[in-house]
């Protein structure tokens, strides 16, 4: 029932001072708290006996004032420390979650939905932090209070009666255990449902243009209504259990009271108990209700916290798919990238997405990758990013060392990556470009933007380099985004530049410019380009044509044109319209130039 506290022991240990202070003061205050009624009682008695003097009056008032000061400062301190603990827990768990997300690879994000992860990082942490604050308070209060009452009761009225009236206590414990378990299950479901709802909303917002363009508003609302009905149902299921706690406890405590009263009466009838004793016993029994209710509340909070903590821990327990080996091999420079019979398959795929790739890219070379949609171009390039556990068959080596033996930081340090769908972050153009090198000067940023042919666009942005882009910035056209993403990669001046169809939304003229600039600055460094434009890779030192995860054709531009295979066909098709516009001699001259 209190597993959650056990699971959080690292936290309580880490914050032991805070909790020692809080609990200590809390207990101390329990004693201070009895003083005021006593003082007032004494004062009234004195007045009653006409024994009040100025001196005693001052004493009494002074004592009360002292109590005020003590209980206020102590009360403030324990409350601040105890609830502060809850906040610290929330803070550090959220930090951990973020650190965890940042270590994760696509596999994790395929298994977890963004909205749900967000829910775990906010909504669930809320429930967890409750256990470390209010939960601890109820724990201390309910246990000390009920223990005090029981001891008092026992010593004043005899153990027999006290023990007898405790008969229902095991039932309370039993009921709480049962409810606690049910609550745990149902609350988990409710939190899951909240995550689903979060996800629904997130998807709707992210896809709002699709929803609008296809006039699916009504359907979306219907689907959301269904999601909410689910959330409602699951929360009501929680409420059903939730509402049981108090009535059950007050019922059972009531029965205790009844037993105490009945048996007490019997004892009085038997002259074994005085009426005064019976009365005070009843008063104490009546006082027991409050700590018992608090006990129920305690179980409630603990189970909710437990359910949410389980959800959080489930996320945190996911081991990173890709980790550095215990000993890494140092590689100074990526001299040669070599695919040795590499076969790869995505964890969710049921066929090989790359098979038997055999390829060598020497430092300074440019590799072009073309092929049909879904043929494996991006998959091939992403092998360098180390997003998946190493493949079992074949190897990818850099400078003769298997990539998984080189520290990931080193590999990432070599890379400049322009993904197929450019993602920009909510920050200025400048900060997006220097994403990989935050200390770059404006001159460097502008140079990178120039290489990506963004300078003319920059002039049109409302605040130049300071223009916010991304989610909360201005909307850029597809080609603009791609070019900023390109500048981002160029700025780090990487050893290995990976362009995954990085200019698909850029017009041909711009693309030609960019390719030209890239070629001039990338002398002596490796560049990998995947593209659907045959012309974009024509200048590469080596071109591979992918088909269904295999290399179908490879060679230099001239080789491939001579082979007359897929590449040549596509090249010609893309160029086809040219022949009509230009006269034949031009075409021949061009062909010669290329040859």
């Amino acid at each position: 029932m209190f597993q959650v506290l056990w699971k959080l022991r690292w936290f309580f240990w880490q914050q032991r001072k805070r909790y020692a202070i809080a609990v200590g003061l809390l207990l101390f205050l329990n004693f201070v708290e009895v003083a005021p009624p006593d003082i007032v009682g004494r004062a009234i008695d004195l007045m009653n006996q006409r024994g009040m003097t100025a001196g005693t009056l001052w004493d009494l008032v002074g004592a009360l004032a002292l109590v005020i000061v003590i209980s206020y400062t102590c009360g403030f301190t324990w409350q601040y420390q105890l609830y502060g603990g809850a906040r610290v827990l929330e803070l550090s768990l959220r930090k951990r979650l973020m650190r965890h997300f940042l270590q994760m690879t696509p596999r994790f994000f395929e298994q977890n939905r963004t909205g749900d992860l967000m829910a775990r990082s906010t909504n669930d942490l809320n429930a967890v932090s409750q256990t470390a604050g209010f939960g601890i308070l109820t724990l201390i209060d309910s246990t000390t209070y009920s223990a005090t009452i029981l001891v008092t009761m026992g010593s004043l009225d005899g153990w027999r009666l006290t023990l007898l009236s405790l008969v229902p206590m095991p039932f309370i414990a039993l009921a709480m255990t049962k409810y606690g378990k049910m609550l745990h299950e149902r609350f988990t479901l409710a939190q899951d449902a909240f995550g689903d709802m979060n996800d629904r909303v997130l998807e709707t917002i992210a896809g709002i243009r699709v929803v609008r363009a296809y006039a699916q508003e009504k359907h979306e609302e219907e689907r959301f209504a269904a999601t909410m009905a689910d959330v409602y149902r699951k929360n009501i299921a929680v409420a059903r259990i939730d509402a049981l706690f108090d009535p059950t406890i007050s019922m059972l405590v009531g029965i205790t009271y009844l037993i105490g009263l009945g048996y007490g009466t019997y004892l009085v009838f038997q002259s074994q108990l005085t009426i005064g004793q019976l009365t005070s016993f009843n008063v104490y029994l009546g006082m027991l209700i409050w700590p018992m209710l608090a006990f129920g509340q305690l179980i409630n909070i603990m189970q909710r916290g437990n359910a949410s903590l389980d959800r959080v821990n489930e996320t945190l327990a996911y081991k990173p798919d890709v980790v550095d080996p215990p000993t890494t091999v140092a590689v100074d420079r990526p001299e040669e990238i070599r695919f040795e019979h590499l076969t790869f398959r995505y964890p969710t795929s049921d066929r090989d997405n790359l098979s038997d790739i055999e390829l060598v890219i020497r430092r300074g070379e440019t590799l072009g990758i073309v092929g049909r949609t879904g043929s494996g171009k991006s998959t091939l390039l992403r092998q360098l990013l180390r997003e998946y556990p190493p493949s079992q068959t074949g190897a990818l080596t850099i400078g003769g060392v298997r990539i998984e033996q080189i520290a990931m930081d080193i590999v990432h340090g070599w890379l400049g990556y322009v993904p197929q769908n450019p993602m920009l972050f909510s920050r200025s153009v400048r900060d997006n470009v220097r994403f990989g090198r935050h200390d770059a000067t404006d001159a460097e940023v502008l140079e990178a933007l120039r290489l990506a042919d963004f300078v003319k666009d920059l002039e049109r942005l409302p605040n130049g380099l300071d223009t916010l882009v991304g989610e909360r910035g201005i909307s850029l056209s597809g080609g603009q985004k791609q070019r900023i993403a390109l500048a981002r990669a160029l700025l780090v001046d990487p050893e290995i530049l990976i362009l995954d169809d990085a200019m698909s939304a850029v017009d041909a003229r711009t693309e030609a410019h960019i390719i030209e600039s890239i070629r001039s600055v990338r002398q002596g460094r490796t560049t990998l380009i995947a593209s659907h434009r045959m012309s974009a890779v024509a200048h590469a030192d080596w071109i591979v044509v992918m088909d269904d995860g295999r290399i179908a054709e490879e060679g230099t531009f001239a080789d491939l044109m001579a082979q007359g295979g897929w590449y040549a066909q596509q090249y010609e098709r893309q160029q086809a319209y040219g022949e009509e516009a230009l006269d034949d001699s031009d075409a021949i001259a061009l062909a010669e130039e290329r040859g």
Partner: protein
Amino acid sequence: MIDLNAEKQVNKRLVEYAAHAKGAIALAIVMLVLAVAAQLAGPFVAKAIINRHIMGIQQVWYEVTPRAGGAVEWEGKWYVRADRMPAQSKRLNPHTLVAVGTRTYFLDGVVSHVARGNEAGQIREQEGGRSQLITARPLTRQQLFSFYRPEIPGVIRLALVYFGLLAGAAIFLYGQQYLLQVSANRILQRMRKDVFHQIHRLPIRYFDNLPAGKVVSRITNDTEAIRDFYVNVLANVLSSIATMVGIYVALFILNVWLGLMASILIPILIVWIWLYRRATVSVNVRIRALLSEINAMLNETIQGVPIIRAFHREQRTQAEFDELNQAYYDGQTRLLRVNSATGFNLAGVFRNSFFIAVIAIFGWRSMHLESLVSFGVLYAFVDYLNRLFQPVTQVVNQLANLEQARASAVRVFELLDEPGVDPVFGSIPRFCGEVEFDHVTFSYDGEHNVLKNVSFRAQPGQTVALVGHTGSGKSSIINLLFRFYDPQGGQIRIDGVDIRTIAPQQLRQHLGIVLQDPYLFTGTVAWNVSLGDERVSRARVEQALRDVGADRLLAHLPNGWDEPVLEGGSTLSAGERQLISFARALAFDPAILVLDEATASIDSETERLIQDALSVLKRGRTTFIIAHRLSTIRDADLILVLDAGEIVERGTHDELIRLGGKYRQMYELQTNMAPASGA
């Protein structure tokens, strides 16, 4: 900074929302009252048992006929309690049952005021100043028990009453708590439904600069924070107010002067609540805003992890997040400081100060003047004061929840108050497909014109191509056609009708678009094509997928068209995603089809296939194509060349080549540029 008017409105609107579950709430409150009443009745029953059946036997007993109801045998005669005698019956041979210490005696005659005697077996009777010693034998246990025996049924009866009250209280308590939860959940559901509906009323512009995570935060987290208001705040505050009213009434009945004295608490409480709000409102607002920032950043980071990793940016991203997280923590700590400084701690200070005042005033009076009130009254007053502070503490403990709920509610209502337009559904006749832009001028921000005086006309069934440098305004033309935005100047007409007169949803019924960045929802491939719209049959879905060549490219999917698609289509290649969104546009069979760089990520072989299919599909519908590969648009009936928001050239491919302008330049570049340094 804080809109005071909105502030004031919040309470009203929160209560208005409560009206959606007013039946349940009212019932819950009735149950609350009943439960409290039943609980309070419990002690009375206990008192009744003690007074009536235990203490009750200590009174005068009279002799009655043997074995009469409730009679007890004593030394061969039968006696019954005076209060159990029928009113008109004769009172004979009185005896008195008295308890002295732990001993009980059954004495002859009517005896009152007894005390223990000097010797064992003696008791002293005191009456009117004189006292008299009586020698008596205490009752044995059995004898005493025989006097109690007639009480047993009564005790059992009362115990049953008590049990009944207990059960009643339990049921009412359950009902009350359950109903409150039900109402809170129902209200929340209603609120979320309203917000979600509002999302669809807002103009697209609203989402331009607003991170998705922030919107999500408002719809889910902020509404969740309001739950407390309905579950705890409402119930606690209402029951506390009821209790306080009760205590005040009792106080005033006790003594008007004391009642007035205790009433000082009310203005204190009002000022307290007011000050608390002033001290925390801005912190609460900031906390909620920070939470939404956290959500936004979580969303963005999760989307961007591959890039963050590739750019080696984990640490800085973490640091940025920590900063937000820390700011959130700081805000909460500040709030906690205020809460700890007020709350029950301050309530305790006030309570004890009241005690000091009572002691001081009455203590002083007791020394110098005649006392105002009896000491019994004073005891009662102190007791009531003590009780009064219980609901007061409850109320002030809820202030934190209340303020948090209010800050969240402000954000929710803010979103609800954004101007928007209700979607209008209902079908309109299919367009013929004549599209005309008439001197259209448009700007996203009201400053920079993205489109300047654009005019063109597309005849039904024609194919219109838009070409131009990126950022020249091609997509913006489409945005206007779809009424995602409305132009500042000029008119757009479809079949001669100004599209502003047509509801956007109705307009879009007959428009189809393949967006530049395709978005796929979690679901299946087939679902993503039909979007679950029942107008799109399964056969149409499959046909559309075949038309775009997906049957060939996606043949490897183990579940065919029912293959699950993950969030954002993350397990599909970019081209495959684009194909699916292409199929979506075809499946809806629009009169006007728009392809915005629809084949940018698709290889030209597949593109060719699509084009072949399109040449059939394009028949009878007006098609707009935006593409960078000019080969794609060569056959268009009208090519519009855009430059910085203006149409600089227009005509067919051949016309434009002959014209020798920008288009020809672009065209030549594309056909000539490879492999070496370009043209």
